C-alpha cells in the first residue's frame, strides 16, 4: 500500500497536480485576505482600480469623448453618461493570473525562471484585460448590438487567448531564460 502510494507520488502528473493545487490555495487565500482587508477599510482593491483606470485611459485614446470614470467600494464605472459599464472585482483578471502562476509553480523547478515568467504572465494578461475593457467602453459608446455580442461571446475567449498564448510560448521563454 505504502509502496503503491510512493510510486503514485513519483508520477510527474500527480506531483504537478499537488504543486498546482497547493499554489492555487495559497495564492487565492492571500488574495481573499487582501480583499477582506480592503473591504474592512471600506476601500476598493488596488488591482481593480488600476485595471479600470488604465481601461479608461485606453477608451480615451480610442476616441471615446466625455468618458467618465468613477470608483466605488464594489468597483468602477467607466464610459459616457447613460452608457457606462461596471468593472467589478471579478473583471480584474487576477484569478486567471493566479492559475497561470500555479501552473508555473507546478511545472518549474527553477525559482528564478518561475518569478520572471510569473511577472511576464501577469503583465500580458493585464494587457489583454485592459484592452478588452477599453474596447468594451468604446463599443458601448458606439451603440448597437456589437457590444452585447462581444461581451457575451468574444471577450471571454479573448482573455483566455492571452493565457493560452503564454502556455504555447513557455518552451521558447524557457530556452531564452536558460541562455541568460
Amino acid at each position: 500500500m505504502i509502496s503503491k502510494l510512493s510510486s503514485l507520488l513519483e508520477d510527474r502528473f500527480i506531483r504537478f497536480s499537488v504543486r498546482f493545487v497547493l499554489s492555487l490555495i495559497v495564492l487565492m487565500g492571500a488574495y481573499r485576505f487582501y480583499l477582506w482587508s480592503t473591504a474592512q477599510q471600506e476601500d476598493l482593491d488596488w488591482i481593480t482600480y488600476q485595471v479600470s483606470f488604465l481601461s479608461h485611459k485606453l477608451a480615451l485614446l480610442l476616441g471615446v469623448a466625455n468618458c467618465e470614470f468613477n470608483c466605488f467600494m464594489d468597483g468602477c464605472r467607466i464610459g459616457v453618461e447613460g452608457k457606462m459599464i461596471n468593472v467589478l472585482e471579478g473583471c480584474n483578471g487576477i484569478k486567471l493570473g493566479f492559475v497561470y502562476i500555479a501552473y508555473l509553480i507546478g511545472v518549474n523547478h527553477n525559482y528564478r525562471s518561475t518569478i520572471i515568467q510569473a511577472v511576464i504572465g501577469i503583465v500580458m494578461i493585464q494587457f489583454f484585460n485592459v484592452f478588452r475593457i477599453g474596447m468594451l467602453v468604446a463599443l458601448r459608446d458606439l451603440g448597437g448590438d456589437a457590444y452585447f455580442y462581444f461581451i457575451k461571446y468574444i471577450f471571454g475567449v479573448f482573455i483566455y487567448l492571452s493565457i493560452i498564448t503564454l502556455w504555447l510560448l513557455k518552451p521558447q521563454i524557457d530556452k531564452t531564460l536558460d541562455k541568460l
Partner: protein
Amino acid sequence: MINAYLLLSFGVGYFRFLEGNDSINVFVVWLIIALLKVAMNYLYFRATKRSVLQFGIATLVAIIARLVFGVSFLMVILSFQFFVEFNPVGGTTKRMVS
C-alpha cells in the same frame, strides 16, 4: 476547444433565457451546465488520449477551484492539458492506448 466553448456559451445563453422566463429552476440550469462542462471535458480528454486518472484529477481540481475560489473551470482544465502536452515523460508516453 474554443469552438466547443463558444457552442457551450450559446447553450448557456438559451438556458439563461428559459430561467428568465421562469420555465426552468435556477438550480436545474446550474446542474445542466455543470454536467455539460464535465461531459465535454471528458470528450476533450478522450480526444487527446489522456488517461481516466488524469481526467478524474483535472476535473476534480477544476470543480473544487470553481466552487471554492470562483476560478475558471476551463482554465484549470487547460493547465492540466498543457502540462501533459509539454511534459512527455509524465504525459504523452503514458497516453492511454485506444
